[in-house]
């Protein structure tokens, strides 16, 4: 083995990885812009003209927003409580957040919807019935993102320091805890949004036309349209990631990318 070969080998691996991710996307893009006779944007204009597309986007964004807000409202206090007051329950809660993946979606839908409709009958017939399911689904991601964020600061000492300086609980949460968890909270929000925007099984079982369901429908009839939609979704997700990353860097936090990677 000569020294000069090592970097070539390394570059080959990098190139291979890039190709692994890029080739399908490039192929997808090329396919979405072609028709039998040449280049065209017909698939895109068809999608943007379709009222159902906008309805699905609107529904998915609404579900994502509701899920994110509610999931964080539940999870931020839980993670803080576990770390500050009840560390013995941490692994239990971690296990609970994973439980949803052990239950087949159809079982979840049949079992939980019966219970939910008994408790909140008004949810019947509205797509909002999906929100509780998405919240449970997002717990695994929000818990991990927040947990990693809390672990990266010495929360106990910071809280003690704030108290000894005269701050009450509300003041400590607002001035010390939340600002130091901002990046983790943004990361959790981002993960929740992507979970909701990508969720297909539950929404199709409930017969609601969210973006992924719409995409699958289009795919059955228009091949180019489905490719165009897939590309739009990928680009939209990237834009979202960049936006969250830029916002958090402005706020002086660590990069969301590294934070998500550490979860």
């Amino acid at each position: 083995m000569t020294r000069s070969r090592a970097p070539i080998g390394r570059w080959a691996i990098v190139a291979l990885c890039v190709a692994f991710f890029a080739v399908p996307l490039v192929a997808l893009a090329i396919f979405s812009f072609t028709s039998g006779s040449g280049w065209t944007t017909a698939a895109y204009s068809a999608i943007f003209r379709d009222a159902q597309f906008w309805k699905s986007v609107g529904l998915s964004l609404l579900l994502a927003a509701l899920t994110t807000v509610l999931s964080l409202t539940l999870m931020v206090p839980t993670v803080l409580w576990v770390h500050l007051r009840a560390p013995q329950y941490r692994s239990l809660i971690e296990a609970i957040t994973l439980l949803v993946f052990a239950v087949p979606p159809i079982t979840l839908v049949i079992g939980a919807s019966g219970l939910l409709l008994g408790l909140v009958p008004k949810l019947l017939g509205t797509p909002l019935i999906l929100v509780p399911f998405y919240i449970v689904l997002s717990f695994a991601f929000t818990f991990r993102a927040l947990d990693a964020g809390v672990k990266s600061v010495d929360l106990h000492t910071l809280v003690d320091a704030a108290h000894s300086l005269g701050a009450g609980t509300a003041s400590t949460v607002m001035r010390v805890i939340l600002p130091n968890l901002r990046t983790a909270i943004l990361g959790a929000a981002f993960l929740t949004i992507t979970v909701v925007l990508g969720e297909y099984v539950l929404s199709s079982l409930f017969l609601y036309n969210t973006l992924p369901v719409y995409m699958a429908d289009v795919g059955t009839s228009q091949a180019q349209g489905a490719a165009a939609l897939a590309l739009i979704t990928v680009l939209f997700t990237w834009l979202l990631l960049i936006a969250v990353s830029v916002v958090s860097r402005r706020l002086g936090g660590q990069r969301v990318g590294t934070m998500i990677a550490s979860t």
Partner: protein
Amino acid sequence: MTTVHIENIRKTYGEFTALEGLTLDMAEGEFVSFLGPSGCGKTTALRIVAGFEFADSGSVLIDGQAIDGLAPNRRDMGMVFQNYSLFPNMSAVDNVAFGLRVRKKSGDQVAKRAREMLELVGLSGKEANYPHQMSGGQQQRVALARALAIEPRVLLLDEPLSALDAKVRVSLRNEIRVIQKELGISTIFVTHDQEEALTISDRIAVLSQGRLEQFATPEQIYRSPATPFVAAFVGESNRFSGTVAAGGAVDFAGSLVPLAGATSHPVGTRVDVLVRPESTALLDPGESGLPATVISQQFQGSRTRVLAHLNSESDPTSIVISDVSGGRHEHLVNGTAVSVGIDGRTALVTTPLP
């Protein structure tokens, strides 16, 4: 100026007794160190004073008033923690201003006071720096400024120097002492480092297994340790076994040495004698002392440490450590026969240690 009175504090965690009957009084403006090995209860005691832990029984009184039910944020105590506890999302000046802002002081007042405090700890010009842009020593200075900014009644220091490197530790501890004297603030300093405690305290409370072993000035702690634990934990000691003889002397395998502490033990009982290295003298053989042979010399700058092997086999410490100042060690080459003399006034005579 504030007095602190700790009254018969007891604290247990399940089966473990962290503190048992801790009682001590601090005068106004006094600098008191809690010294002891890890697990001795010193940090627990500090956290009870701070209000982060609650005692099972007993009481903490500040200026004569019990504060046991008071939450930490109502106690007016400034605390510096072992781990860097600065708020990472705030600059140095905002960290220092935090306690003042919580107290709803006016903006001008806050900014002025925060800047003064940073100046006091020698960090003028670093106001805008964030914690991650500062060294460990600078961060602890900011933490000190932050604790002092609220004009606390008592300053609590929880091993604030233990994460710093040796040089910074020494210079910062001197500065802490200067600032503390200047402000005249009553201070409790928790440390496991005896040198630190000896150099900066007015008085030291030595703790072991939740009990107060001795509460006295550094000099008293060092020169006349009240218990064998203090003698062994603070500074270094030689340990000799002997039998109490008549006339205030101890018989070490045939060598009679007069020791002030011997009179408190009945004649004929077995005792251990603890002696500081500098309270020993390496005399000519034949003079009163324990016969030994020099085995090594360690040059330590202002003094030389000479190790000698006791000729008698019965002692627990078979190697004697003796500190000789100046150049008076030159004749003590390896193999020299000596007689180890003991300063009878400072040696601690105790029942045999385990």
